[in-house]
């Protein structure tokens, strides 16, 4: 049903009172995360609600992978991005940035008791240091000559690798270090490096929205709402006092930080099986619907391409060959991004589901076309002659004589392709679809159980693919039944 909600949301996207804000819930605490699964939390989730309320609009979260949040903004899928985006000169030129809602340093985390642990930026030269890609921390590390390791999977991974000894240090934004660097085997140095300012990002053409957000932020600083919010999450820093222009420390306890640390050792099932399973069920449904729909497209289009290649007039056959080479020879991920983020430049705006369906279907059609072509070529040419001599037209001969024989060769690889497609469908998270693997990432970030959840999700993929493998074996037996007679 989430699929239909996604489809519907695109057609209704024009309704003005909503403030659609983009953020990646897989990133985790304290920004935006799901706890329990399906329930959005984090200081930015709260901030989005408060900002929207002051604008007289309803906040609606749009899930997107962190690296794609700004493209989503340009594409018009969201009105603002609110997800720990730093103010930089480049962004100031390309977007309308609000005043900061948080400011603070980068923090260096090292292994506790490591005698060679670096303590300054200068110490990092040549050392292996983990961080998140595209951040101020990454730029600082490169400038310092460190051997930089970046992680796409989430905020926990750099600290996990540091604890395992795969890196020597992690440099990341203070909130990340506060929430994920707090492991018994690690220690975060008290001195901070540099200064970060988080801002809300709107499209450059949306200066009025930016101005309205600035006024809302100003009023939230003046009436103490924002300082109290940050303090509850343990994020009230000296820099925040200075940059935000607020005064004093709000008299509230960092309850959210304490709650996070209190639950940091809890595993998957402490969250409750119900929410976990229903989130995974929704993800699996998206994966299954998308894969089946894409396979139907791939099989139909693939058959047409194969027929065009084998029996079509020369220009048509050449076009079909060009199609196959193009879609087989370029990465599926590239095709997905072009379909979703590139086509809007030509005025074609597809919903996430349609874009994912099209990209997967068009890509796999190339593979199916090759299967079907092999099948068509496996039928002796004289079979066509025999059919024609009996008076069958060319297409009648293909339909009634060639195709039924070709399918015995074409069908078995289709199952393999479907299972491959089922797995490749995990790539559609770049177009904001929350399918099974994305659900896993989000849940694993929230529950900190990568292993148990990973095995569960793996089993779900197997369970999704198995019925199709059996269906194909049954079909194969049926189609070749008459050939067994001869043996």
């Amino acid at each position, binding site marked *: 049903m989430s699929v239909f909600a996604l489809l519907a949301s695109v057609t209704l996207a024009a309704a003005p009172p909503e403030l659609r804000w983009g953020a990646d819930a897989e990133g985790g605490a304290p920004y935006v995360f799901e706890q329990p699964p399906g329930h959005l939390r984090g200081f930015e989730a709260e901030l989005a609600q408060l900002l929207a309320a002051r604008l007289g609009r309803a906040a609606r979260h749009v899930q997107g992978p962190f690296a794609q949040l700004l493209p989503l903004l340009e594409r018009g899928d969201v009105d603002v991005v609110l997800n720990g985006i730093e103010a930089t000169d480049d962004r100031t030129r390309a977007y309308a940035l609000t005043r900061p809602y948080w400011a603070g340093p980068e923090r260096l985390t090292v292994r506790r008791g490591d005698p060679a642990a670096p303590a300054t930026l200068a110490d990092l030269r040549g050392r292996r240091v983990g961080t998140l890609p595209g951040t101020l921390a990454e730029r600082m590390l490169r400038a310092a000559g460190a051997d930089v390791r970046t992680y796409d999977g989430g905020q926990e991974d750099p600290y996990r690798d540091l604890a395992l000894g795969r890196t020597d240090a992690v440099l990341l934004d203070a909130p990340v270090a506060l929430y994920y660097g707090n492991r018994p085997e690690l220690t975060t140095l008290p001195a901070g490096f540099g200064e970060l300012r988080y801002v809300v990002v709107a499209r450059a053409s949306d200066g009025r929205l930016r101005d309205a957000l600035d006024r809302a932020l100003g009023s939230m600083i003046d009436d103490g709402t924002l300082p109290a919010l940050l303090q509850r999450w343990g994020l009230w820093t000296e820099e925040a006092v200075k940059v935000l222009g607020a005064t004093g420390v709000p008299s509230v306890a960092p309850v959210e930080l304490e709650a996070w640390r209190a639950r940091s050792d809890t595993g998957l099932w402490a969250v409750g099986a119900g929410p976990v399973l229903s989130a995974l069920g929704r993800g699996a449904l998206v994966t299954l619907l998308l894969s089946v729909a894409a396979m139907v497209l791939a099989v139909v289009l693939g058959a047409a391409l194969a027929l065009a290649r084998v029996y079509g007039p020369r220009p048509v056959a050449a076009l079909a060959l060009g199609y196959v080479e193009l879609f087989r020879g370029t990465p599926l991920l590239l095709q997905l991004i072009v379909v979703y983020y590139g086509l809007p430049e030509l005025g074609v705006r597809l919903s996430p589901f349609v874009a994912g369906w099209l990209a997967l279907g068009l890509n796999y059609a190339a593979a199916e076309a090759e299967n079907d072509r092999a099948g068509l070529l496996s039928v002796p040419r*004289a*079979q066509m002659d025999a059919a024609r001599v009996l008076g069958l037209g060319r297409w009648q001969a293909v339909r009634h004589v060639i195709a*039924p024989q070709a399918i015995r060769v074409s069908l078995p690889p289709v199952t393999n392709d479907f299972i491959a497609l089922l797995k490749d469908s995990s790539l559609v998270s770049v177009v904001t679809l929350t399918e099974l693997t994305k659900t896993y990432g989000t849940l694993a970030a929230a529950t900190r159980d990568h292993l148990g959840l990973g095995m569960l999700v793996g089993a779900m993929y197997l369970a999704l693919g198995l019925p199709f493998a059996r269906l194909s074996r049954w079909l194969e037996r049926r189609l070749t039944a008459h050939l067994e007679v*001869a043996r």
Partner: protein
Amino acid sequence: MSALRVEGLVRRLGPERRAVLDGLALRVEAGSVAVVLGASGSGKSTLLRCLAGLEGFDAGRVALGELEVEPSGYATLLGRVGLVFQSMELFPHLRVLENCTLAPRLRGESGAHVEARRWLDRLGLADLEQAWPQSLSGGERQRVAIARALSCRPAALLWDEPTSALDPERKREVAGHVAAVRAWGIPQVVVTHDSELSGALGAERYRLGGGRLEPVTAGTL
């Protein structure tokens, strides 16, 4: 029934447009058989493919009774001339009866089954109509191929090397099949290099050479 007439048939092939058939003429009356002998590469299969409508020709004409076919309309021969392939080319995904009824059924002929069963019966295949082609012997397959061709009520029947795919003891049966079809009044052309068969048929014999047919007398064989 009507005769098969071929006049001035020219077929050029290859980049040099060599005339494989060069003004070939042939006349086979209803109920008659013409045996065509010739070395391999002499153009025997080209002749059969032209007569069946599988290949066009550059000049001349092919006539089936009243129907006269010019080079531009060669494809009208498709479905009107039966051809028993050297390798039979039965449809492996269809049962024996379905092999025979497919084409008439697609043409929308009612009674396709009745006609097909009539030929299967005459060829002694009544018990095998539900069999798969792969389960049949070589001789049975050939009879199915004949029944399939005749179920389309062809104006002529062509045979391509009918003994080559058969066991020695089955080869003798072929002459009987040709004789049976002859009794049903259909003109036939049998392309073969099997001298035993050509002798057994007792028909007019021609040698294909230089793109034309020359009558063969007993002495010149």
